[in-house]
Structure formats: C-alpha cells, structure tokens
C-alpha cells in the first residue's frame, strides 16, 4: 500500500465518519463544522484525483456555505450550543434502512459494473481545459447555471425579506379583498392549522421514531404555548387582524 492509498484511506475515513457525526452531535454549530470537515476531506480526495481547481474550490465554497449554515443553525435551532442532549428525528428506522439500502445498492452496482479505464493524463492542463470548455462549447450550460444562481439570489431575497407580497410576511400574507377594505379573496383557512412552534415542548431524547412520528405536532405546539412561561404565542394572527392591517394599508395608500 503506497502513500497515496494510505492518504486516500485516511481522508475517506474522515469524510465518512465526520459525515455521520453531523447527525449524531448535539450542537448545531458543531454539526455544520463537522460537515465542513467532511467536505474538506472530499475536496482533498478530489485534489488527489488530479482535479485541483474543483477540489480547492469545493473547500473554498463549502467553508463559506458552512459558515452561513452555522449562523442559520444558531438562529433557528434550539439549543445551538448543545447544552442538552437532543435527538430530533422522525421515521428513524426507515431512514436508517433507506440509507443502508442506498449504500449497499450503489456499492453493489459499483462492484458488479465493469468500468472503462481511461485515466487522466498527469500532464494535461485540466484547469485550462475547464476554462475553455466553460466559455467555449458548453457556454450555454455555464450561462444557464449563472442565470439560475442569479434567480436563486433574487428569489432568496424576496422570500426572506419582511415585506411579503401582500403586506408584512410575518402576519401571514393574504390576498387583497375584492373591494377596497373588503374580505380577502380566496378560501379561508381553519385557525388551528399550522400552529407549530419554534420550540417543541416535549422531550425527544432517545425517542424512538414511532412515538414521535405519530405524535401530533400541533398539539405539541399548543401545549408549549400553554404550559411554559416565557414562551411567546405564535405571531400568526387571525383573519380579523389581517383585515385591519389591510384596511389601514389601503387607507395609507389612497
């Protein structure tokens, strides 16, 4: 076993183990940086596979992505520091099964297929190739990817901004009424729907999937609202509040 094989083994082990630990750690920040570690190991393997640009760019991009991911984790997840043990899973057994089946299936396919052997020439200028390909024959694909990214950026800003399509998005966007200040058009929604809560109340530590998958999340949310002090009720307002805000908005604009 040469040095290259050994390095490859170590990097693969790091990639797989840290990839697994992502879903087994309690702290969200640790989870995102473990994923970064996994990506870094894969990036180095890619580097060994004679694709320096792709390998380093993976590390580069993933460092930024995982940094942002960590921030979002801290923003939205409970328990970001991992102070309490946590396990937020559903359909755990099914998911484990699916993962194993996917791994075994793909591995079996890999092992039984006879791949052509045509290794990349070490002297080949792969980065130059890539650049000429991107701005030459595959220009259209590359440009499409660029436009898609731009659209994603615009979409992301629109989606996450507070100003929704019909007024502030945190009040629940409602279509305008058929007449000025009238009832919103469209179907009414029952009040109970979607009353989920940021902090789920009950313990999921070591939960088996069955209990949780069948538990009613909405009921959980209500218990949390009622049972714990210091929790804020859902921001979601009902229709009448929505009407008021609609009215005031039309008044302001007219």
């Amino acid at each position, binding site marked *: 076993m040469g040095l290259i094989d050994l390095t490859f083994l170590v990097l693969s082990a790091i990639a797989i183990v840290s990839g697994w630990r992502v879903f087994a750690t309690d*702290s969200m*920040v*640790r989870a995102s*940086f473990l994923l*970064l570690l996994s990506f870094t190991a894969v990036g180095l393997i890619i580097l060994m596979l004679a694709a*320096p*640009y792709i390998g*380093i*760019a993976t*590390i*580069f991009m993933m*460092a*930024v992505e*995982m*940094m*942002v991911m*960590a*921030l979002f984790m801290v923003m939205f997840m409970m328990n970001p*520091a991992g*102070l309490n043990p946590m396990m937020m899973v559903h359909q755990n057994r099914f998911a484990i099964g699916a993962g194993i089946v996917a791994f075994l299936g793909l591995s079996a396919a890999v092992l039984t297929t006879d791949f052509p052997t045509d290794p990349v020439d070490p002297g080949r*200028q*792969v*980065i130059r190739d890539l650049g000429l390909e991107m701005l030459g024959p595959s220009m259209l694909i590359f440009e499409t990817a660029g436009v898609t990214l731009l659209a994603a950026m615009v979409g992301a800003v629109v989606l996450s901004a507070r100003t929704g399509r019909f007024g502030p998005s945190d009040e629940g966007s409602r279509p305008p009424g058929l007449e000025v200040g009238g009832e919103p058009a469209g179907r009414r929604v029952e009040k109970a729907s979607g009353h989920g809560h940021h902090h789920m109340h009950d313990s999921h530590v070591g939960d088996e999937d069955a209990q949780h998958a069948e538990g009613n999340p909405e009921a959980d949310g209500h218990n949390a609202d009622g049972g714990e002090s210091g929790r804020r009720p859902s921001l979601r307002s009902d229709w009448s509040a929505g009407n008021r805000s609609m009215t005031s908005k039309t008044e302001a604009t007219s």
Partner: protein
Amino acid sequence: MTQVLAIMVLPLFLLAGIVAAAVLDRAVPPLVAGRSLKASFVGPITVASSRAMGQTGATEHPDTISWILAPILYFTLAAIGLSVVPFAPGVVAADLDAGIVLWGACESLTVVAVFLHGWSANSPLPLIGAYRYVAIGLPAMLLSMFVLIAAALPAQSLAVTDIVEAQRSVWNIVRQPAGFVLFLMLGLSLSLRGPFDFADPYDLAGGTTAEISGAARLTWWLARLAMLVSVSAMTATVFLGGYLGPVLPGFVWLVVKTGLVLVVLVGAGEVFARLPPDRMMNLIWLALLPLSFLMLVAVGVELLLWG
C-alpha cells in the same frame, strides 16, 4: 529540489516576518501618538514570555476542542497561504495551478477559525465579536476574489508563479490601483486589525480574546501576526511584482516589498477609524463590491483591446 528549498525557507520567512510585525506593532502606535519612538526587539519578547507564563482562561462549559484548535487553525492557514508565494523564480512551496484559489480557500477558512474562536468561549462578548467578524469578513473575502481574478486575467492563469511572471511588463498595482487598496483592506480584515478589527475590538473588551489568557492568547497573537505576514507577502506578489526587480536577487526584492506592505498595513491599522459594523457592511456591499466588479471589467476591456 527547489520545492524542498522553498519549504525550508517558508518557516524562516514566517518567523522573521512575525518578529518584524511585532516590533512594528510596538513602534508604530507611539509614532502615531506623537511620543518618543522606542522600537526594540526585547519588548515583544518580554510581553510574549509574560503571556506564556500565565494561566489559560476557562469559562464554564466551553467547546474546549475548538477553543484550542481555532488559533492553531488560524496559524496553519497563514502558513498554507504563504506556501503559494514564490520566494524566487521557481522557488515555491506549493506550485499549484490553482494557487490563488488555494489562497481564497485560506481566506474563507480564516473566517471559520475566527468564528470558532469566539463561539467556543461560551461567553457573550466573544460571541458578538465572532458574529460581527463573519458579517464583515465574508463580503470582504468575496471582493478579494474579484480583485484576485482581475490580477490573474493578464497572466491567463490561476497559478501565482504565472501571475508574477505576467508582471514583467507592468505591475498589477498600475493595472488596478483600486484593487490594490481593496486587497490591503482584506489584509486588515484577515489579520483583525484597526478599521477591520471586528472580532477583537476594544468595545467588546477584546472580543474573541476576552476570555482567554496565557498560552492561548499568545498563540492567537502569533497567529494574527503570521496572517499579517502572509497577506503582506501575497499582496507584494500579486500587485508589486513579487520577486521581480533589477540588480538585487529576487528573494531580497520580495522581502523588501513584503516589509513595505507590512509597514503600510500596520500604519493603516493605527491611523484610520473603524466604522460601526452596520455602516461597514453597507460600505462593502454597496460601494466596494461594485468597485471590484468595475476593476475586473476594466482590466478585461484593457486586455481585450490592447492585450
């Protein structure tokens, strides 16, 4: 063979640079403050030994592993970043075809290292410092990539050695002076200095360093200086022609240019005011990032017409 030589030179270069930066750090503030100049080699060493002797701080339930690893990661990134810099024609530790992409990866991982340093202390002020740094560090890094791509355009290569060779006719600082200034700003941001020191500032009682002491603080301090040296060498290479220069050997030119950038960075860190993070973020996204686009377009047009 030359690669082995470069790998041997690298730690010496880094060490000498750190010492020079530490001396400058003690000499420049009195100069700016209008006091008598007391540059000495002994000053930094006594402070370093004083720190080495202290106890390392501990908060309740910090993330110990990342707390210890963050300064080491930071230092390592400085060394890796320096490894793409050619010390003389053909003498480079990591002669990669994608050299500036590796430098970019170091930049982005630096943000991660600083964030981890603040986050793992498990204390409010370091955490605020960590967040702020991410908010400013990420866009600063983003614009540095445009600047670097504009520098790579004339060379038609992502390799740092080719970028240096492409400057034989004209240095990149002439091609894109604004890019040079933007890259200096990135240097301040990477080494947590002056106007871009959003991680360890005074108004957070030392920010990410607020809870550390002793050897941990010493390591962090050394890592910051190492990053300063690394970014100075990179600036000298990408914008000032690196080892190119008449009469003197290439290595000497690189040292001289790196030293010059080092002085400019340390001076700028003391002389210019730091904007509150919100204003700085607006400045970067609304003014500096478009400026870096413009520089990129300008260099592209120039090469297209006259290149």
